């Protein structure tokens, strides 16, 4: 039996770390339980000659492939898009590209503007100061003045354009379409103890330089110094409730498989859009036979994944290849709804540099572009370093049949039922994706890519990076799981702060907005603590 804590946070990733740091100034006793380990900078693949190979092994983005002891399996057979994540201190910020756009103001008002889905119970203006605070804490690079967004000022200058960026810029200018240097969670200067980017070029599976803003090196050092306790290798099985319907704490397993009960005054769930509903559905009791805080029946439903399409081609000139962060530009030309199109809402185009030599060889072989035999070497030399690519990130509207449930058979190494994903792409998303691919081909043509070399992967199979919607927020307890400041409608000392609470998905990478929301909810908790109304 452990001593009772005031605040128990489950998950140390993007949202859990932000909330832990924000709540630390209350001087409450705060504990975070994380099922994974700390990852040492010396463990990251870019330290070794096998840096690309490890993308297919212990740093694979798909947890089923990675299969670390700290991972949990996911039954994703009934989904064309596979869930990708990372489990460790920093969560999936260890394993992301650090592309860091915010949601747009219109994203919070899709029902009002376009008559689809639901409006959010918060808006851009409310979150704006939390976006700014989060940008400061994470250390964001970028350039103020993007006409696609309300004005904001990233604290560091943008990533370099490079040869690939200039080629894209020229092409998009020729078409008269928007482009802008991305807000990026990569330091371009010394910042809060972090070293600036030196263009290792392999950002996704962790940054050995420490330039990429994973929360283990941004929020956590500050939170730990402020007195927050972080307990690793603590895999939570369920959230317990007492006879009064309030959460009493959690049951978890340590690294040796020993079961513990950790009591708490309040519980904050920050396990991402798959891990959170999995935990809530596993938290069954007489009071909540269908999972904790699930009187609406919506826990696990409305899963949104941002289906991605990859479109790429090859130019005659040598470009940046894998040198430099892979993403440094975006185009929001087609982000907002246009009634002329055959779909509502829109998408971001994120513009890529090239790939490393092994990824180029593998992807080109699988695409049938790279021959076997005598001609292999000649063709390969026309591909490596000559690739221009872009991803269409489509807005994925909520649909209840897209869902996370508990697999009846599959379990993790602690015997906890694993999540099962059932997901299909909507017609609206398919039309949007087709539009994005067509525009991407136009950009490639304007950039001088050989039309015979253009390839498309739509949707990207291992593209389930963004996990949203499975414990949605709202003011109606029958149509949402948490209220407008993240508190469960059913359990008044239970909060959800990760991407699960998103009402709609927008069409941008979600980490910036997830963290701004976490800070907003932490601030709401602090205000209500001060007013003694937190559990009213």
């Amino acid at each position, binding site marked *: 039996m452990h001593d009772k804590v005031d605040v128990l946070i489950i998950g140390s990733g993007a949202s859990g770390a932000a909330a832990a740091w924000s709540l630390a100034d209350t001087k409450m006793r705060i504990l975070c339980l994380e099922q994974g380990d700390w990852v040492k900078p010396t463990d990251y693949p870019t330290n070794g000659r096998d840096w690309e*190979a490890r993308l297919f092994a212990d740093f694979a983005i798909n947890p089923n492939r990675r299969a670390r002891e700290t991972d949990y399996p996911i039954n994703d057979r009934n989904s064309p898009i596979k869930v990708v994540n990372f489990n460790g201190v920093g969560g999936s910020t260890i394993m992301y590209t650090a592309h860091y756009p915010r949601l747009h103001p219109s994203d919070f008002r899709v029902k009002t503007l376009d008559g689809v889905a639901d409006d959010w119970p918060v808006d851009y203006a409310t979150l704006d100061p939390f976006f700014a605070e989060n940008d400061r804490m994470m250390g964001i690079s970028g350039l103020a003045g993007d006409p696609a*967004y309300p004005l904001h000022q990233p604290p560091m200058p943008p990533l370099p354009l490079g040869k690939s960026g200039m080629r894209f810029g020229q092409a998009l200018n020729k078409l008269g379409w928007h*482009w802008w240097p991305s807000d990026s969670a990569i330091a371009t200067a010394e910042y809060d103890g972090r070293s600036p980017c030196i263009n*290792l070029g392999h950002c996704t599976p962790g940054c050995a330089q420490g330039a990429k803003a994973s929360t283990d090196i941004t929020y956590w050092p500050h939170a730990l110094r402020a007195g927050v306790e972080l307990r690793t290798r603590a895999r939570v099985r369920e959230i317990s409730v007492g006879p009064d319907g309030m959460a009493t704490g959690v049951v978890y397993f340590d690294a040796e498989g020993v079961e513990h009960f950790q009591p708490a005054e309040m519980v904050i769930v920050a396990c991402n859009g798959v891990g959170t509903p999995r935990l809530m559905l596993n938290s069954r009791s007489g009071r909540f036979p269908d999972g904790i805080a699930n009187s609406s029946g919506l826990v696990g439903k409305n899963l949104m994944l941002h289906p991605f399409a990859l479109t790429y081609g090859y130019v005659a000139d040598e470009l940046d290849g894998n040198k430099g962060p892979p993403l440094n530009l975006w185009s929001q030309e087609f982000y*907002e709804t246009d009634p002329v199109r055959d779909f509502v809402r829109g998408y971001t185009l994120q513009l890529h540099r090239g790939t490393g030599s092994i990824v180029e060889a593998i992807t080109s072989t699988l695409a049938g572009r790279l021959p076997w035999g*005598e001609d292999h070497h000649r063709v390969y030399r026309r591909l490596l370093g000559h690739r221009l690519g872009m991803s269409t990130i489509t807005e994925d509207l909520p649909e209840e049949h897209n869902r996370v449930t508990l697999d009846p058979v599959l379990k993790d190494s602690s015997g906890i039922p694993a999540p099962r994903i059932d997901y299909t792409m909507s017609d609206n998303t398919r039309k949007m994706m087709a539009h994005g691919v067509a525009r991407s081909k136009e950009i490639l043509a304007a950039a001088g890519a050989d039309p015979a070399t253009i390839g498309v992967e739509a949707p990207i199979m291992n593209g389930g990076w963004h996990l949203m919607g499975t414990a949605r927020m709202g003011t109606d307890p029958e149509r949402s799981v948490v209220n407008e400041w993240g508190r469960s409608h059913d359990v008044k000392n239970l909060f959800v702060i990760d991407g699960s609470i998103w009402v709609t998905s927008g069409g941008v990478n979600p980490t910036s907005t997830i963290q701004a929301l976490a800070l907003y909810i932490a601030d709401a908790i602090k205000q209500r603590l001060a007013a003694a109304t937190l559990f009213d």
Partner: protein
Amino acid sequence: MLSPAHLRDLETFAGFMIPASAHYGVPGADDPAIFADIARSLERDTDDVAAALERLAGIGGKPFADLAADARRGVADAFRAEGGPALTALIRVILLCYYRDDRVMRSLGQEPRPPFPKGHVVEQGDWSLLDPVRRRAPFFRKVP
């Protein structure tokens, strides 16, 4: 661990897939050092690679290494047309070992080293390219 017969097939297939080239000054994927790397890098893909080699033998009617050189192309092309996870595992392990060999990397103009700590140089580029976009009026949708 693959059987000796499977290793023989794998070596033959690797050499077929990426032969040595005097023109480019590179070894084939059946080069002893590269193949040794392939053999010790199978790890979690061992079963899939074994299945791939069995499938090649099934298509060809005999182990890939026992096929006449001019018969291998048809068998390999047939397997490539089938696709599947076993084929993916087979080609992946060959490519990820081949394209980290020092000789191969140097032939591509790349330094045989890990990215860290030296990193790479990326030019800033011409930021004036952004001027037309800077002049554009804000176009994000206003909300009520």
